[in-house]
Structure formats: C-alpha cells, structure tokens
C-alpha cells in the first residue's frame, strides 16, 4: 500500500472515477490551470481537458446550481468549494434544489452530485475563513454528509460519493490535506453511512469525526499511560448517522465523550448524545459529555484561536470526568 497525503488520496479518487465514468466532471474556482487552491485537482486538467475540469468564475451560487442542473439530466458533477465558508453563498442551490429535486418531483428526478471542499477551523484565518459548518448540512433531509479523517477514508468515501445517486456533501479537513497515511490502490470504496472504530478500548468511548480524530488519538495515548483504555469511534458519515456503531461502542464501554470541532448548540454531537440517551440510557455509567468549539467567533490571535478549539487536554479532561477520575 502506498503512503499518500490526504490531498493525494482525494486526487487519486477523482482521477480514477473520471477515468471510469465520462459523466463525471469537476467544477470549481481554480480547479484547472491553478491545479486547485489546495492542490487536490493537481494534474487533472492535463489528463481530462477543459470540458471536464472546469475553472468557474467566483459565482458559488451560479456554478453550484449549474452543476445541479447537469446532474438532473444524467451527468455526475463534483463541485469543489474553495472552502465551505464560501459555499454559504451556494447554500440555496444545495438545500433548496439538489436536496429536494427528488422529493418535489415525486421520485421522477435524481441529483447525483458531490459538493466537496475544505472545512474546519484553524490557521489564523479569523472568523470568516475558519469555521466547521457540517452541522448546517447534516440538518437537511435529501443530503448525505461525509467527513473523513484519514487519507484512506478520504479516497474511499469520495469514490462512494461520486457513485452515489444522491447529493453528497463532503467536508474535507482543511488542516488535514498534508496528513499522510496508507491508502489502498485502485478499487477502494468506503461505504457511506458506516462509522469506523479507529482505536479499540474498554473504559470509555470517544465519538468524533474529521480532524478532531487526531486530537482524540493524542488524548487516548496520554490516557493509556494513566491506565485508561479509550475506544475511538470515527463517524465518517454525519448523515445518516451510524446508530448501530454508536450504540455498540457505548454498550461496550458504558461511557462516552462526543468531540466536535463546531459549535455546541444544534451541533451534530447533540444528535449523537440524543441517540445514546434515548436508546442506551440504561447502559450508561455516567452522563455523556461533549467537547466542542467554544460558542464564539474565531479570533486571529494565536492564544484566542487555540482557546476556542477542542484539543487533547480538553478531551482528556472530559474522559476523566465521565470516569469520575477528575482531579484524581
């Protein structure tokens, strides 16, 4: 297996799927001659030409809707959002059109399309460029939402998303593009809707996704030294949520911490907690805790930025709390 960066894994998935199916095309700002703002589409223009790798004007609403129209009549567009912060301008086309076409037409239409691009906070970019927005999309019926943490999952989930008959929102980790990992060659498809136990443990479950997985892993390693065995469940798909996997891990460890980069109120983690308390309340030995981004806008100053986000220390503290070991 090759060791690839997250961005290279995505690039491989795109190239393979475009090779396999001529209906697949990529559209977005700077995806062609510039080779992608984050270099995910490196080399694709040379391979596939300008009708399939399309440099769009800075018209997020316009080109997103255009791609949805192409999907309505059988093409399979991949729309690259330069970042999800700007995709807010395209939200109408994603939620009012793509997500509802099948419903409004009573099952006559389908809209097989992928909206993908980097999301998440960090990098000293202040409040307009630094936010985790997946909860917004996870809210809408008619969309699937995925958020891979590792290069292998990034490749496998993107391939699955391109083959899916529904609109799929893929939030990539802006801070993960250079992360390296083993990536299976060729036909590696990760099913949408399946969470993954990234670390086996027996004392407590941490449930998370995307970039936060790495902080959880760091916390787990520290905690291991203190004799605490942590299981990490990487959700990978936020809509639909893998209820079975969530309940299975909670039934195993009887304790859970849900870690989310975004804001607490109406976050995806709130729904995870809801699933646990309504379906596995009796299995719990402690209330479920959440670690989330603080309920404030992101600041530029390094210390404020850090204080705003979850990190390994905050996660470890929450784990100890659900084990009633705080201050121990």
């Amino acid at each position, binding site marked *: 297996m090759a060791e690839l960066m997250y961005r290279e894994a995505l690039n491989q998935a795109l190239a393979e799927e475009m090779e396999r199916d*001529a209906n697949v095309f990529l559209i977005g700002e700077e995806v062609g001659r510039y080779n992608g703002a984050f270099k995910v589409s490196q080399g694709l223009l040379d391979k596939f030409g*300008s009708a399939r790798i399309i440099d769009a004007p800075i018209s997020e609403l316009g080109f997103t809707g255009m791609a949805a129209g192409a999907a309505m009549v059988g093409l399979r*567009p991949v729309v690259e959002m330069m970042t999800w912060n700007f995709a807010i301008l395209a939200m109408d086309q994603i939620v009012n059109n793509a997500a509802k076409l099948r*419903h*409004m037409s009573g099952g006559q239409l389908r809209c097989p399309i992928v909206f993908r691009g980097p999301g998440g906070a960090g990098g000293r970019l202040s409040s307009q460029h630094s936010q985790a927005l997946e909860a917004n999309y996870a809210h809408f019926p008619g969309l699937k939402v995925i958020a891979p943490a590792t290069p292998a999952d990034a490749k496998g989930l993107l391939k699955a998303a391109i083959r899916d008959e529904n609109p799929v929102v893929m939030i990539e980790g802006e801070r993960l593009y250079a992360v390296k990992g083993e990536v299976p060659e060729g036909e590696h498809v990760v099913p949408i809707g399946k969470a993954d136990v990234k670390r086996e443990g027996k004392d407590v479950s941490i449930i998370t996704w995307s970039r936060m997985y790495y902080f959880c892993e760091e916390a787990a390693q520290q905690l291991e030294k203190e004799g605490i065995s942590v299981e990490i469940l990487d959700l990978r798909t936020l809509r639909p949520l893998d209820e079975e996997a969530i309940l299975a891990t909670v039934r195993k460890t009887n304790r859970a911490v849900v870690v989310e980069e975004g804001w607490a109120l109406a976050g995806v983690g709130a729904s995870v907690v809801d699933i646990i308390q309504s379906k596995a309340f009796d299995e719990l030995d402690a209330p479920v805790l959440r670690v989330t981004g603080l309920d404030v806008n992101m600041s530029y100053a390094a210390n404020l930025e850090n204080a705003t986000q979850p990190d390994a220390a905050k996660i470890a503290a929450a784990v100890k709390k659900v084990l009633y070991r705080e201050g121990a």
Partner: protein
Amino acid sequence: MASPYSKELLLTMYRKMYLIRRFEERAGQQYGLGKIAGFCHLYIGQEATAVGAIEAIRPDDYMLSAYRDHGQPLARGADAGMVMAELFGRGTGYSKGKGGSMHIFDIEHHFYGGYGIVGGQIPLAAGMAFASRYRNEDRVTVCYFGDAAANQGAFHETLNMASKWKLPVIYICENNRYGMGTAVGRTSAVPEMYKRAVAYDMRGEPVDGMDCLKMYETVKDAAEYCRAGKGPVLLEANTYRFRGHSMADPATYRSKQEVEEERKNDPIPKIKDFALKKKLAKEEEFDVIDEEVKAQVDAAVKFADESPEPSVEELWRDTIVEPGEEDVRPRERVLGTKVKWPSYPSGKELKVTWDLEPRAQAEKEDKKAGLAR
C-alpha cells in the same frame, strides 16, 4: 396575403392556450372552494409566452419554470387531470401530492420543474444546457422566470457563465410588470430586462408576449441560434397577468383601468381572429375546440376530486434514492400508460469532445504572456 402559418399550427396554439385558460379558471374556482391550498399562482393572460415558445421548439428540448408553472407542462402534453390532482394534493398528481402547485414536474415531456425560490431555477437551466453540450446533443433548454427574478444574483452569475461557455439555453423573462405587488420600475434600475444581456455580451431581445405568433417566431429563431452553438439568448416577453400574483392577492396595487386596457390584448381572441381573418378556420371549429377543452378540464377536476390522498408511507419515499431504486414515471403509475422515459448515455458510451477552453489557444496565450504552464 396568405398566412405563413398552417391551420394546424394555429388551431393547436389556440387549443393549448384555451386549455391553460380554462384550467386556470377552474383552478381558481377550486381554490375558492378550498380544494386547492397553499400558494396558487395563475397564468391567466400569459398563455402566449408558453404556447408560442413550446410550438417553436422540439418536444425533447428541456424546459423549466418558476412557481407559475401549470401552463407550460399542459402545453407540452402533461395530463391535465394529473396536474389538477397535484394541485389538490392527491396521490395521483405528478409528484404524488408532495410538490403542489409550485412544483409540477413532468420528465416524460421534458418539463423539469417548477421552482419556488425566485431565480433559483436559472442556474439549473444552464446546467442542463451544459449537459447537452457535454454530450454533443443539439438540444436547447428553455427557462422561464419573472422580471423580479432578474434582480437575483443567480441571474447575473448564470448569464455570465452561459455566455462565456456558449451554452444552448434560451432564457425567457416573462415581464408581467410586477413582482408580487411591486411594479418593475420601482426595483429595477434597468426595467427593460433584455438590455441586461449586453452586460454579458449575449443576444437579448424584447418580444410581444401577448402575441403567440411573435413568441413563436422569436423562439424559433433563438433555438436555431442556440443549436448552432452560438450561445445563449435572453428574451424578454412583455406580458401581463390578468389576475393577482397568487390566489391570495386581490391585486389592489394596480388600477382597474390598467387591467381593462391590458385585457384588450388578450392573446387567445387574438389568434382566433387571425385564423378567421385568414380564412384558415371557421367559427364552428373553435366552438368544437372550446367544448372539447371544457370537457377535458371538467374531467380533470373530477379525476382530481375522486383521487385518494397519498398514502402516509409516501412520507418516507422520494427523499433519498435507495440502491437499485427506479425513478417514478407518473403516467405509468397513475394511468397505466406506457411512456418513453429520457435515458442518458452511460459513462462508457460517452465521448466528451467539447473543449470549453481550447488548449492550443490557451497555450499560445500563455506563451505570449511569458507564462509557464
């Protein structure tokens, strides 16, 4: 002078316009009876813009519209009973009662929907036109929207792309002079919508939207232009709605006199008079059509009224495509009539030959500018 139009064309146009008129009058009446709810935007007065355009294009050309969307699918051949059933919220409607008045979809007749967000369908149309070029088909896409929609960002963003990429799409702005209760001049710096095409270096023209034949000629010409790969066209059909914006609107923001004046322009008697004057049809032939259409609309109302509501299990269908699931073909499902369904080439059969930004030229320009690739 002899008419350049065949009797058949004129009678077809008359029949379709009259069908839309009768259908809308009955829809208004059924709304009053509480059989139809929600928003119901009638098309009365604007029939010529739909019918003239539809007769000028091919049945397999794509078409889509906003929420004032009963007329276009009817003119394309949709089943009047099933459109009415959709307005009634019945399971036999085109969208099984899930869409209602604002979301009529009849894919069999290449009518890709009515949309409720002002201007939201404009980019979709460009995407459908893009797909035609991508697949080397000579299909055009016709997209309707209102004058108020032309102030949305979606309009400007899309015209820019459509023109730059020479997409075969005909945008028909139905300027009925009001966006809800707001007269066009109160909100639009340039109230002549066709002029906006200039900003995107594309073809733009005004057309008398109260005259079915003028619509027909203009759209025929525009479609040829699009099919020849010359790019998109923006038409401004100057028209008028005789009723309020929706059934909820008594339209007190305009004078009685204005409406009276506009009613003299009614496109339906206009085409009838034309045919009579040219001696292409007799009064009795129109009477026969009128009776047939009235019976058709009566039957549509009866069909809708007698149809059951959708089953509650329908709630859980049609949001996500499940693996292996087929698309729903409404007329097959409801009337048991076999229909031909659009099919698209698989990725294996498809050869993309279009160059959106020709390579050789780009390289030459780069070289001239001293840029490396």
